[in-house]
């Protein structure tokens, strides 16, 4: 990968791809595929196979929109997060997600390996969070994941979800309260210490 492509803005890469540069797609995939897959995985409650399908479809839509991309009108990343959230919503409404019991797809951790217990606990926490996220309404789940796991700022989330910033703040606050309530019975099992999270904190 040349330094030129590595330093190029996202929209410039998309333009290069549309003009036939064979390396531009590789750089775009390097930048976005991990985050697209991560977002899809969390929005789809940890269903890895379904998340891979969504990630591939989202990237395919990016390739197809490249020739018509209007420079300066939207961020490539924002556009991609919106496509991913919409694709995930469609799949959840179509009921395509597999019923995934707690602990499914957890990493194999050999007994006695240093840090094995900590990694197993981390995997259990992620599985519990995925299960709790699955119980949230679509918009709350999207806002919470985009804000607290993907680390997007509220204005960008507002652009992704096509709502106002205040609505984003409301969704994330309600989503966190709902998550705390759902997980309140598992605090000890998940090794979560501290005060009761269902006390109304956002």
């Amino acid at each position, binding site marked *: 990968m040349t330094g030129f492509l590595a330093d190029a803005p996202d929209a410039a890469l998309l333009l290069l791809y549309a003009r036939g540069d*064979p390396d531009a797609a590789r750089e775009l995939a390097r930048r976005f*595929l991990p985050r697209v897959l*991560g977002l899809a995985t969390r929005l789809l409650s940890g269903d890895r196979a379904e998340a*891979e399908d969504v*990630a591939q479809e989202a*990237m*395919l839509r990016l390739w197809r929109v490249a020739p018509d991309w209007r420079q300066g009108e939207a961020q490539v990343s924002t556009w991609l997060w919106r496509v991913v959230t919409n694709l995930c919503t469609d799949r959840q409404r179509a009921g395509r997600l597999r019923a995934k019991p707690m602990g499914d797809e957890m990493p194999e951790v050999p007994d006695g390996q240093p840090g094995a217990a900590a990694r197993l606990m981390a995997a259990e926490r992620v599985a519990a969070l995925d299960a709790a996220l699955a119980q949230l309404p679509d918009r709350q789940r999207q806002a919470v994941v985009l804000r607290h796991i993907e680390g997007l700022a509220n204005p960008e989330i507002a652009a992704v979800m096509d709502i106002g910033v205040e609505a984003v703040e409301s969704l994330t606050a309600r989503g966190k309260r709902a998550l705390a309530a759902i*997980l309140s019975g598992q605090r000890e099992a998940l090794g979560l210490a501290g005060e009761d999270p269902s006390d109304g904190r956002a």
Partner: protein
Amino acid sequence: MDELDDLFLAAKAAAPAPSTALVARVLADAAAAQPRPAAPSPVPRAGWFAWLADAFGGRGVVAGLAGTAVVGLVLGFYVPALATDWSSVLSAETVELIPDADSLFASLEEQG
């Protein structure tokens, strides 16, 4: 930091890396969907006759010249005496089409 933040951190750390197979599928899609630069329209190569026609003012002119040359060759081959006679005629005398300077001054003096 509250307990939910611990869970969010765990989820961030557990973000799945794309498998080699997924990367390959995505790049294959990219290659298939990538617009190809428009190929230049093929320009037919002009033959030697077309080049000659352009140089001499068109196909009709070149065809006429070629026909005349063929007739000349045929005459020269079958009636060589005719060619010899014409050459002797052409070399027999010199025709002055433009008067020389002496003739010009003489005619001026006569007029003056």
